């Protein structure tokens, strides 16, 4: 079924009887060419691009719970490609370009909104680093603009420019950055994949891999064995747990990242603002809630909840930069499990087991990567070679010393 304004009007006038399920609820088949484990944004996007771009057939997405229930369902919805390093910037710029055409491609309004993202600068060293980054972005074909404090004041007059402990000394803007309605990304990819024949199998937990002679033959699940020629894992947050079933240890720790939303408010914030001297970033959703976050709690956790010190730390940053925020109320806080990798960058690669492929380690940058991650993983699954924008995301980069360390924090995941 094709969605359109016309269709909405027609259904409104005929009692909405014509809407059908956005995706089927099929029984698993005994064998697929491709099994994607994880019905989150990345897994669904992978299946979609496998079917659409790489013309593959017999594809299943297997999801433990309900699709879109992981990090794609709980994040701060930001998209951007303001990365510094060669290994990252082309990939995230590819992703941003995919976002730009996504809704028409999917025939699903995911509310991709290029409202711009602004990283505030508070010191000369930070400015030097942001100039280098902005230049790297432009040299990679992305957009970037340096804003003066005055320009920032014009756009965000309520930011603390008078009495700040760390005065705003400018900002790096990416106008093509912005936000997306996160749930709709999962649903849009699911609907698109389903319409191209992908089986989306919900409430089906992978309990093990069937591996014989170094080759993966399929997955044991709560609904029985499902054979697969190629099995791709895209369960970021739970990568450690899943890959342990294949006896793999990963360069990844699972950490909790909290995020927050305020009560609905009339529009105040046009774009995304990131505070450079504390842990705080914020945007406003179309519904009116201020969506904000900061740093991870910092300890390994699968609990999907965090603790008060981090909540306070984030809100302190908010009050420091945006002192009108005090009278808005925090409505809801939540925690997601992050695959924090050893250099802060992801992995899209084959494993040492034939037929078993891995996509994970997204730290807290996974949402913006969704389209490119799916595209590149589909490429890898189809061709067994990495996509041109994802050549650096290899397992062996740690062994070889080819880390992609944007923050320069080394092999300590909670610092990335």
């Amino acid at each position, binding site marked *: 079924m094709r969605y*359109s304004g016309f269709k909405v009007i027609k259904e409104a006038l005929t009692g909405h009887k014509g809407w059908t399920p956005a995706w089927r609820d099929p029984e698993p088949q005994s064998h697929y060419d491709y099994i994607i484990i994880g019905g989150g944004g990345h897994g669904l996007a992978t299946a979609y691009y496998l079917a659409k771009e790489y013309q593959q057939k017999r594809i299943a997405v297997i999801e433990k719970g309900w699709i879109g229930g992981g990090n794609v369902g709980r994040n701060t919805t930001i998209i951007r490609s303001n990365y510094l390093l060669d290994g990252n910037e082309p990939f995230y710029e590819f992703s941003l370009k995919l976002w730009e055409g996504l809704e028409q491609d999917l025939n699903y309004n995911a509310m991709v909104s290029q409202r711009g993202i602004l990283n505030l600068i508070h010191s000369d060293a930070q400015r030097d680093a942001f100039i280098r980054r902005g230049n790297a972005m432009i040299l990679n074909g992305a957009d970037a603009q340096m804003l003066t404090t005055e320009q920032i004041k014009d756009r965000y007059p309520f930011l603390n420019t008078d009495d700040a402990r760390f005065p705003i000394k400018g900002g790096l803007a990416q106008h093509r950055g912005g936000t997306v309605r996160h749930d709709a990304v999962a649903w849009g990819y699911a609907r698109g994949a389903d319409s191209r024949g992908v089986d989306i199998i919900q409430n089906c937990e992978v309990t093990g891999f069937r591996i014989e002679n170094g080759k993966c033959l399929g997955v044991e699940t709560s609904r029985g064995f499902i054979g697969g020629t190629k099995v791709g894992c895209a369960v970021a947050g739970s990568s450690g747990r899943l890959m342990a079933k294949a006896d793999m240890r990963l360069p990844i720790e699972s950490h909790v990242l909290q995020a927050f939303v305020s009560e609905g408010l009339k529009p105040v914030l046009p774009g995304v603002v990131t505070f450079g001297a504390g842990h705080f970033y914020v945007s406003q959703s179309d519904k009116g809630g201020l969506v904000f976050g900061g740093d991870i709690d910092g300890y390994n956790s699968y609990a999907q909840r965090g603790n008060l010190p981090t909540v306070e730390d984030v809100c302190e940053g908010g009050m420091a930069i945006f002192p009108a925020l005090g009278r808005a109320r925090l409505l809801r806080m939540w925690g997601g499990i992050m695959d924090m990798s050893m250099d802060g960058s992801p992995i899209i690669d084959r494993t040492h087991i034939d037929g078993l492929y891995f996509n994970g380690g997204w730290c807290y940058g996974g949402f913006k990567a969704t389209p490119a991650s799916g595209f590149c993983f589909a490429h890898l699954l189809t061709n067994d070679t990495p996509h041109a924008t994802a050549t650096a995301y290899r397992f062996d980069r740690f062994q070889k010393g080819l880390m992609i360390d944007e923050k320069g924090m080394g092999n300590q995941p909670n610092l990335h």
Partner: protein
Amino acid sequence: MTQHNRFSKGGQIDRTTPQQFVFDGKSYEGYAGDTLASALLANGVRLMGRSFKYHRPRGVLTAGSEEPNALVELREGNRQEPNTRATTAELYDGLTAKSQNRLGSLRFDLLAINDRLSNFFTAGFYYKTFMWPAAFWEKLYEPIIRHAAGLGSLSLKDDPDVYDKGFLHCDLLIIGAGPAGLAAALTAGRAGADVIIADEDFRMGGRLNSETFVLGDDSGADWAAASVGELQNLPNVRVMPRTTIIGAFDHGIYGAVERISDHLKTPEAGKPRQILWRIYSQRTILAAGATERPIAFENNDRPGIMLASALRTYANRFSVTADKRVAIFTNNDDGHRTARDLHAKGVKIAAVVDIRPDIPRSTDYEVLQGEVIDTKGRLGLTFVDVQLADGSTRVLDCGALGVSGGWNPNVHMTCHQRGRPQWNDTLAAFVPGADLPQGMTVAGAAKGDLSTAGALEGGRAAALATLDLKTTNVDLPVAEDAPIALKPFWYVEGCSRAWLDPQNDVTVKDVKLSHQEGFRSVEHLKRYTTLGMATDQGKTSNMGGLAIMAELAGKSIPDVGTTIFRPPYTPTAIGAFGGRHRGQDFHPKRLTPSHQWATEQGAVFVEVGNWLRAQWFPRDGETTWRESVDREVLATRASVGVCDVTTLGKVDVQGTDAADFLNKIYCNGFAKLAVGKTRYGLMLREDGIAMDDGTAARLAEDHFVVTTTTANALPVYRHMEFVRQCLFPDMDVQLISTTEAWAQYAVAGPNSRSVLEKIVDQDISNDAFPFMACANITVCGGLRARLFRISFSGELAFEIAVPTAYGDALMRRIMDVGAEHDITPYGTEALGVMRIEKGHAAGNELNGTTTAQNLGMGRMVSKKKDSIGSILSEREGLNMADDLRQIGIKPVDPDALVPAGAHLMKMDGPVDAAHDQGYVTSACYSPNLGHAIALGFLKNGSERLGERMRLVSPLTQIETEVEIVSAHFIDPEGGRLRA
């Protein structure tokens, strides 16, 4: 006539204290003890807001914090507070409030057109349209949607109030001061336990204040007041009204927000608006009560349609009726209580409509078996259509309708650590599950004990059990103990525009459509329809949605499941979480020992982490910072300058294994360093990347002083302790950070020795104290001090350190004795210029990705010993032939700028990322050379000295031609250092 809906007597309001207030520009009067909602109802105001999507008229639904409808902008100006629940806003004299989410007046909201179009604006409609043309989303559709969305508005003025934070500890935290909480608190308090009892309401007592029950010989409210009074007099009990426990966190830590001043026009002088408490409790009793739930029927959202229990609260506690004619719609006995209480106060009961066949009868008013099938009234309820059991219909003439669908225990806090609630068939509701947060027990209605006697008994029993008490001296009064009599009933068959979530405008029809489109899990339902995502987080709406989902899926409600309850329990001012950490107090300021002196000199300060350092010292007549910095650099190189370098980290390392220890943490060797000598040290992380650099001075065989960069003082110290305690636990070595214990000044320049000779008591001639010497010395005739002959500037230089208490005096003395050489204080800018001129790496170069090789120090990494990072530094990726190397850069045109952050490109190659050759890390104007200079990293840079390159910074629109040169711009042979 004012307050025409106020009864002439009764209630817990103070009629001797009238309070004037303004709502939407109109003045009203209420009483102390009112909420804004009760005062508005007393004045006959039913219409208080508009819904989110359809802009339907909204009045109060509840009498508590679960209110979804009556949200207002409270106060004005910089204290304007959007989305404040009128049902919890305590009335004060002079209160002002405005309705919100309307275009035009509240009565004639132009956006009410959305209601006419509601058939188009169904659940998820926006995912299906607004996609063409693509550019119109940001330009047209989205701005319209954004402006229509949102609820109240933020003033965008800085919040003028103060918020505090505090910590409390107790044996027992009791959440909720209704009958269960009070009985628990009396039991625990009389037994001597340290108790905190907190309640979100300004009047403690919970439902006891809202009901007409008696407890023994007292009214419920009087018993509650007496109990609270007793608790307040117990020294071991802290009674906290107006305090919401917002969340249960790990290990018995609870967040609480106490509203100190929200019931006042402005906070009293010196008082905060709110306090965020972190309560550390050994045990917790959750006695948070229960919330009544509505029933969905056609047009059930009109102002005047309320929860039956809320009508009772307004009548009994606030002495107010929502209207003179009231009807009731219920599926349980509790709804009949409202009719009885209101009738007793003289309110006309139009009828009680009960869905059950065996209904409690009344001689005072009509009781009908049937269902409400529709309502009328544009801005407030006027008529209710009832279908009776026999199929006939009745129209009831009434301005208020009380609805009761049963009660949901407030289990939220039991689920904050991802426990799941259990289904209880008797209540047709979820009750706490087995998996409770550490130390928590649940009592009273929150546990499912809905009768007053059950709550009292449950509270006492919970306190006895959790504190392991054998006996108690709390005798509970005789109280109401009615059984639960309820027939589960969620929505009236055939209804469509029947609201489940009246704030977000989610109707029964939306839930059905969502199911039809395959959004069948409870999380999908929530996200697709926005059910339960309103400011009340679904407290009154979620159960209805679940019940319909269950029915459509042919499952039981518990099989459908619930969404996850997350903190905060009620929305909480962000200011409270921020506390005093805002403005200049966001982070503490660390001041250097010479700060006072530097302030007197008119220094400009800069934030370096939490430190404030003098950036430069402007003099009269200097109009730009560059003039000052150039002068400071030239004066230092020509004669002598002084700079406070206290912020550099200092770690004292002592023990017989101290040298071995340094051998572990530095990649270069320290074992052979002679006593009295200092050596540059490069520290790697275990991954082989440069972590920090600094010096280690050997003051004795078993005593070193290690310095770190300012930024890394803490992480390096932490790392050193890790190496000491975790990797080499038997080494005889002790560490202590002494960064703030010593004031340290760099005295640099050809005359630095002459200056210091005047205050140092020992011989510091070049022979006695050569380059890289260090010593414990005395100054000014006996003050202990340390002297290091090290140089960051490249000049003959010393760093001198004295105990911090003498730092100010030493700076003043250095300036005095240096006067004859025109000693010049210099700041971090001049320091930076001189270190770039000298080619020293600093933070911009040590950016966490550079190796010793990159810095041109690859050969420093000793392979003859074990040191942190040495093995992993050998990986191929860190040793590539065309690796980046630190180089110097100078512009071909001496007037050109060389901006840091610019990238280096070959003269003839393309300018893009694929051809990037390197980048500029640090840049400055060199007053000694008369042109800009810079440090940078360039691929294979050490082999490319003399090469001309394009320096591009498209971001700042600068492109210039540069020459790659040695990073040592000044005195490359180092003669000055050794002079």
